[in-house]
């Protein structure tokens, strides 16, 4: 399994929407390589005939009757919002100027 480069960590941080400083990138990249190296040991353990387990218990879809249940009021849902306006979450702009 490949080593993870500093540039790659910077790219992953972009995908994960985290601004990492240069110092953080310097620190994280070698640590992640060490971790990846240690987990690489399992690559040959299970053959392709072994089915994957995503969940410890056998699960089927769980349904309930489609009836209205008590839920949060708008005030409760918005109470901890960083910013709210007209019973809605107020967020920073989503589109760029050119869009």
């Amino acid at each position, binding site marked *: *399994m490949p080593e*993870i480069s500093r540039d*790659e*960590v910077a790219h*992953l*941080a*972009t*995908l*994960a*929407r*985290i*601004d*990492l*400083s240069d110092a*953080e990138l310097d*620190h*994280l990249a070698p*640590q*992640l390589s*060490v*971790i*990846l190296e*240690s*987990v*690489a*040991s*399992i*690559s040959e*353990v*299970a053959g392709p005939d*072994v*089915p*994957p*387990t*995503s*969940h*410890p*218990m056998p*699960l089927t879809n*769980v349904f*309930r009757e489609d009836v209205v249940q008590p839920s*949060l009021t708008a005030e*409760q*849902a918005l*109470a*901890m*919002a*960083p*910013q709210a306006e007209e019973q809605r*979450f107020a*967020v*920073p*702009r*989503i*589109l*760029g100027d050119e869009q």
Partner: protein
Amino acid sequence: MSDTTRRTAADLAEALATGETTSVALTQAHLDRIAAVDGSAESGVHAFLHVDTEGALAAAVASDERRAAGAPLHALDGVPIAVKDVLTTTGLPTTCGSKILEGWIPPYDATVVARLKAAGLPILGKTNMDEFAMGSSTEHSAYGPTRNPWDLERIPGGSGGGSAAAVAAFEAPLALGTDTGGSIRQPGAVTGTVGVKPTYGGVSRYGLVAMANSLDQVGPVTRTVLDAALLHELIGGHDPRDSTSIDQPLPGLVAAARQGAAGDLTGLRVGVIRELQGEGYQAGVLARFQESLELLTKAGAEVVEVSCPSFVHALATYYLVMPCEASSNLAKFDAMRYGLRVLPEGVDSPSAEEVMRATRDAGFGDEVKRRIILGTYALSSGYYDAYYGTAQRVRTLISRDFEAAFGQVDVLVSPTAPTTAFKLGEKLDDPLAMYLNDLATIPANLAGVPGISLPSGLADEDGLPAGFQVLAPAMADDRLYRVGAALEAALEERWGGPLLDKAPALEGGSK
């Protein structure tokens, strides 16, 4: 320290039932103990992030009124409890040990919290933890570490170091924890307390802020096996709000604990997991483990060695599965609807994406960032099969090892953690060394089976507590309590009392 705070929850419930004490009196005694020993981020045990003096006392008054009217809600009505800060509580902050949720007061109760309230247990406060339950030492809390009551320079385990330290320091008779890779059991081992990870799906996860959905489970943190059984029965059972909740009644856990305490394990087959001992395990931890095996044999159990060959891959499997799930789960902390919002410096009219990036940088700590980046990597196109896919297949092998082992024996046992509590700071910037603490606890989470840790004694090298782990098949949680209570009774007879009697007195809390 008043005698009240040293009593077990079962004993306190009895004292309330007979009118010997009141909920107000014993809630106040625990609040006083917290005030005396908990300290702050800088000193003291620091098990609590928030103490709810007013709310706990109000609940205690209401409990006493119910008792006076002859209508208690539950045997534990009026017995106070502490709750890990990863479980939502209306009216009380829920931070998950993270800056990104500083000051967040949830609009709903976790199902387990709702069940505590419906049974009348006053909630003393919220306990400290590694940020988003990521860690084995509670040092990754954004609000400062919790310290081990046995030695304040040492870690209390993690992620639930706050809950374990709270019961070990007699600040609460009961606490709730959560266990994704050992976060209830490993802190239990290093603080000389009892912790149970129930069968996956046996206790509702609704209102538990998820780290890794397929591994997380809520469970009891206590000083005795019987207390854990009482709390487990209270919080467990089906919850329609959690789609992974098992729609079956729990086995009789309190009954199993009482049966076990009688000390007879005749006919029980105990399997010692060959792969979870030996190299990497501290000599004193292994010595206490061997003694406990001898006591089980003396109680009539048949102890044999069993092999679970895939368990040597459990740690690596876990450190792929967990970051993948965690990176997805933590995507919801996006600065839009709740939690921290940080505007990037020097940017006019920043976009939502720029605000997200700045907020997640400022709000998440190092370990959380490590795991998010690792998970993002392992799930990215081109690597998904090699990492996540591979880990899921090895997970199947680990479950098969459990199935084969439980075909031969009734329970499996191992030391809970490979070492006793290490010094604060010792492994903070060495993620791999930190991850090794969960070597013996992780297989149970991957397979969904239940496990208990109980104290096995003090290691000769350092005089610090070691833990004994018992694992049972899914939905056979009662076996943990039967075996745990039998071993606890035999050990306490040998020690002449509970192990915590040997813990040093804490400054501020006269003994």
